[in-house]
């Protein structure tokens, strides 16, 4: 009698002893992690060389739950940490997995500079349109006008169009999916791993406990159905036209896929040109030092 073991494809990527996780019922972060796990498998990456760096927030907790070299850093600063990690150890595949507030408010400056430099890191931004972990405050992505804990009478801040911002800053790969688009998201993530340079995927996700609940938009499932209903796949759409609003169309797809020399190549080329034989390329660091 033979026994075949069937494992949940996501399980080998999880720190199973830490389950169940802290995310709320209907939160989409876990769903995005399924796509991430699927992408890691399908991309045939050597998992020893995959490092995940998170900031602070609900999405920031992803690093703690994944069975990879993982770094849970400070609020907004996952990207510069990832930059140092990648430059010191170029053989690593460095993924930044963090939230909209972390990456675009406090971390906004670091994001635009890493994109400008085209540092070879892969950024997954789970955008739940709110600061969730701290109880539902307005984020730079919160569309107007909705109720948040710091805008109890409704928001009036204009909000960022993330793909537009990231493309302008210089990213070579920009895509947006929602947590409804599990397969497309997995495929995008897989593409992203193969892309050299600063690659960015925005994942629109419910925050049923705070964003949706305070605005009487239903629960996580209602939001997933909403995504299904209002999303339009427009690959190649101009990023200037993909801004989100409270109840309007959500444009998803792959918007930008272009080639630019990544930061290490730029550095290497310049130093080689000027120093010739004198240039000693930084090795992936010797562990005995």
């Amino acid at each position: 009698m033979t026994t075949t073991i069937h494992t949940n494809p996501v399980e080998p990527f999880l720190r199973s002893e830490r389950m169940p996780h802290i995310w709320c019922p209907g939160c989409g972060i876990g769903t995005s992690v399924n796509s991430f796990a699927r992408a890691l498998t399908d991309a045939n990456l050597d998992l020893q060389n995959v490092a995940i760096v998170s900031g602070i927030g609900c999405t920031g907790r992803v690093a703690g739950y994944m069975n990879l070299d993982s770094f849970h850093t400070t609020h907004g600063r996952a990207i510069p940490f990832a930059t140092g990690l990648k430059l010191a150890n170029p053989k690593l595949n460095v993924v930044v997995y963090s939230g909209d507030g972390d990456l675009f408010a406090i971390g906004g400056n670091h994001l635009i500079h890493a994109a400008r430099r085209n540092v070879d890191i892969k950024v997954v931004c789970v955008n739940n349109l709110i600061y969730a972990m701290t109880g539902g405050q307005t984020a730079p992505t919160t569309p107007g006008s909705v109720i948040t804990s710091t805008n109890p009478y409704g928001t009036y801040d204009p909000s960022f169009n993330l793909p537009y911002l990231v493309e302008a800053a210089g990213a070579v790969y920009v895509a947006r999916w929602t947590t409804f688009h599990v397969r497309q998201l997995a495929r995008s993530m897989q593409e992203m791993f193969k892309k050299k340079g600063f690659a960015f995927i925005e994942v629109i996700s419910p925050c049923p406990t705070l964003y949706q609940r305070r605005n009487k938009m239903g629960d996580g499932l209602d939001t997933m159905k909403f995504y299904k209903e209002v999303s339009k796949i427009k690959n190649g759409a101009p990023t200037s036209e993909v801004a989100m609003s409270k109840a309007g169309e959500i444009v998803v797809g792959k918007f930008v896929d272009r080639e630019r020399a990544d930061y290490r190549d730029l550095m290497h080329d310049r130093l080689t040109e000027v120093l010739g034989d004198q240039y000693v390329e930084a090795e992936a660091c010797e562990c005995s030092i």
Partner: protein
Amino acid sequence: MHADPAGVLTGTHFLDGDHACCEGALAAGARFSSGYPITPSTEVVERFAARVPKIGGTFIQMEDELAASIALQGAVWGGAKAFTVTSGPGFSLMMEHIGLAVMTETPCVFVNVQRGGPSTGLPTLPAQGDMMQARWGSHGDYEIIALCPNSPQESFDLTIKAFNLAEKYRVPVFVMLDEVVGHMTEKVVIPPADQIEVEPRRYTTIPPGQFLAYKAKDDLVPDMPRTGEGYNVHVTGLTHDERGYPDMKPAQQDKLVKRLVDKIRKNADKIILYEEDQIDGADVVVVSYGITSRVAQRAIDLAREKGVKVGKFRLITAWPFPEKKLAEIASKVKALVVAELNLGQMVREVERAAAGKATVRFVGHAGGSVHRPEDILQAIMEVAR
């Protein structure tokens, strides 16, 4: 182990403190720096940017000190010895990440070439006003190590020491220069690489799967795992258990934070460095550090010429503070004169250690110019009476 010769500029040089500090970092094995320009520290990384491409390493000028202070920590976990350099305003910005380095036990070096503060202050003029900040600037309970060179030669030597202490105790270590030490040019002798001891990173020999990333060894310091070798480390600023996983119960907080503090406090005797001269039989001992100690020496010499029995006590490590030694001195002398380029920082530690057993007389001002020998001499003469 010996220094990697590639980073050692053996020979006799005429360098300023900033440049000598850079050479010290290279000799210690630093191969990554992330920096941000700020007077009077910028020369350290400018030199590093010029030197390291010929040695094998990376310099990246980040967009601000927040980025610089964490990029270097990413590089450490990538396997490099890494540091950054700053002055007051940048130091203030780096505080959160100093806490991260403490909590994650990331070995790294922060150089502060102190200038007049607070705020933008005096960018091109000296002060020693960040001494307490180095110790207490980040939030929470923690201990760090801070070294105070008083010459370009010491800027070289103590920067190597800083890297070695950082690796040994897995803690951020501060090299507290000031603008005068940073910009004064003196002879610096750099020995051959085989005469320079460097501390290798304490990587674990335990294989992945069996290794607990934050389980301390007998010296209260855990060995480090390597990224990219299957250890699947988890490094977090949250209070964590021996696996590195978040564990935010009060009992775990107590256990972890006590150990982080104890690993310095209980090893203090092995870390503390000072220079003393003619303490035995002294009536007055002058306590100073950094550039002020150079002026203090002159004042001490003048006082001795006048027949006063003056001893010298120079802090080489300001933190951990040599409280036992100072307590012992206080019980034997009449007075301690503390000279520093601020309105009273390390003097508080001296007062605390002295516990009233000796008069403590402070000589200082708000920065901008070094002490005049006569200011310190006057204080010595007054307390000697």
